[in-house]
């Protein structure tokens, strides 16, 4: 048997065996883990959902950081951590999202404002009110500059801010914000009618 024949036989046999091994035992992709995690999440099996989201994140880390799939998984993980009251881990995810969005979209983008709002929510739940307030002020400014003072998202941030101020005992300031966001909501509902 010639050397070429031996090489060809080796390629044919080993290559085909490896192909069929992979075909019947396919390596799990990030989509597989994401699907399993979402299913576990819907069934309230949070620990399992967390495990699959972490595995999906490990696979997706090979993607460029500005890839929307990367941010999507980070958001899912942050939410899972929040539900399980793992606020420190959730904070890490939210900070990572914020950094990606700032790099991708710039500092004055509504998505960045929403990221700041999410992080503020995390701080509020942990009693870090001052830090939360700073973030909400930043988010409010971005949204007012980009979408206008009467936008529904501005109303949402004002509502969160008012809620935070109540927690901090600053009820008069909170009341002012409440009347402001209520005015926004009522004008929006009139527009929709």
């Amino acid at each position, binding site marked *: 048997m*010639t050397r*070429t*024949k031996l*090489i*060809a*036989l080796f*390629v*044919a046999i*080993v*290559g*085909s065996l*490896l*192909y*069929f091994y*992979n075909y019947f035992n396919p390596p799990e*992709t990030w989509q597989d883990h994401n699907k399993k995690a979402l299913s576990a999440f819907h069934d309230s099996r949070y620990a399992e959902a967390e495990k699959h989201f972490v595995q999906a994140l490990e696979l997706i880390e*090979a*993607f*460029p950081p500005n*890839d929307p799939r990367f941010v999507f998984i980070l958001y899912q993980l942050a939410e899972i951590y929040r539900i399980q009251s793992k606020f420190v881990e959730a904070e890490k995810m939210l900070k990572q999202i914020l950094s990606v969005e700032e790099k991708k979209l710039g500092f004055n983008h509504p998505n960045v404002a929403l990221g700041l709002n999410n992080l503020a929510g995390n701080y509020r739940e942990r009693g870090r009110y001052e830090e939360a307030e700073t973030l909400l002020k930043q988010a409010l400014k971005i949204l007012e500059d980009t979408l206008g003072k009467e936008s529904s998202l501005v109303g949402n941030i004002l509502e969160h801010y008012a809620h935070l101020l109540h927690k901090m005992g600053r009820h008069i300031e909170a009341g002012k914000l409440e009347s402001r966001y209520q005015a926004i909501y009522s004008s929006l509902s009139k527009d929709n009618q």
Partner: protein
Amino acid sequence: MNEGMETLRLLYVAVGPGIAIAVFIYHSNKFDREPSKLVIKSFFLGGLAVFPTYYFEGVAEQILGMQALQNEHSPLFWPKTIFYAFFGVALAEELCKFLFLKAFVFDDRAFNEPFDGIIYGGMIGCGFATVENILYVLPQGQAVGIIRMITAVPGHAFFGVILGYFMGRAKFSINRARHLIHGLVVVVMLHGLYDTAAFSNTIWSVYLIFAIIFLGIYLGLKAKRELEKLATVIEFSAKQYFPLKGRRKKVPLHLRDIRCLLSKGKLVPEDNLVDKKSGKIKSIREIFSSKIISQYRGLPKAPFSGMPVKLFLIFYQATFGLYLYFWFLGNYRDFTSYKKLKLNPELLALGLFVFTVLPYFFYGVIQRTLNVQEVNQGVDISLNLAVAGIETAFLYFQFQMFSGFLKKKLAKPFSVPVVILPLFILSGLKKVLAPTIPFYIFWEMALILLQGGVLAIVQRDLNLYWKVENERDQRIN
């Protein structure tokens, strides 16, 4: 339609095109039909080559992180795509086909003239295209099957023909390595460009894909034509030689006798022969090289034997009617060659292919550009009828030409209008037929059978014509 029937239909769409081209290539060898065992073996070797290359491509895809590339704006998109297309896919696939061809077919004694490279290379390409098509079409559906029917399948088949051309020349040349490397480089370049266009998924990539496929088909047909001339010279050359090997023969050998002895294993390409006239000693490799093509002009043209009607019907049916393109080309080539007509059969067949496929492509582009969500049935039907009209017009001109020749030799040749009109109606019906109607596959098959039946009338008369021509030539000789 139940799941089993759907799988069967998809399998039919996946397997048909590869087999159609394989049949066309196999039947292009007119003088020395290759052993069917080796031909089938080559086809299956091509199919087998899919598995190792797919494994390798998967590994390359992972290493290069191809999944992470979303569009051409992703970092390192172009370097990674080009590298993957050329080295991860094109080189892997063509090298594997090359390796299998070289290891299991190249040294076989049935590979006894350069033209055989076209047959075996083409078979490897068709086998690869068929198995790959099954892997794509079964999970992804009919739409993918139809796109691949006019892109990847002819691409693989004709890249195989081009590779086979160089293999054939390499086997009968003193510069074996040079031809082998040339062959591999040419097909890897073509295939790599095709894959770069396919993977980049940009606006221009569709145009580039079609351009490369047309170039591949054109080069493949040109290569085939060149080696066909060489095969004709080997068949009819009057030159005679004495072999130096073994007992000195008293009767000198023609080139076709040498080809026969090669296939019996009594001679090998390295054996030397003595030219009866000049006394020069040359190896069979040197004699069978493409240099002898220059003798082609002076050779008599042998008429063709035609094709059994039953076989034609089977091919036509089994290939979903795709055999029409090859039949159209084969007929033009037979008449052009025999009657020394100034026609370009490849260009005409390519014209038929382009004009019956491109309207659908442009229609799709217009729909996408105008963002048309709902399909307008009136426009759809008009387009299908227009394409049926174009197809019939091409056939009309071909049949008119045949009719002129057939009238001189046959008492009652077919009438062109009588054949063309039903062909137009059947082609139109076949194209307009909605896949949603009950028993769609049955109606589609029935229409293909009827269309094949009408074309079989022409094939029958062509067979009679070639028979008469053969008898006349035998009387003259």
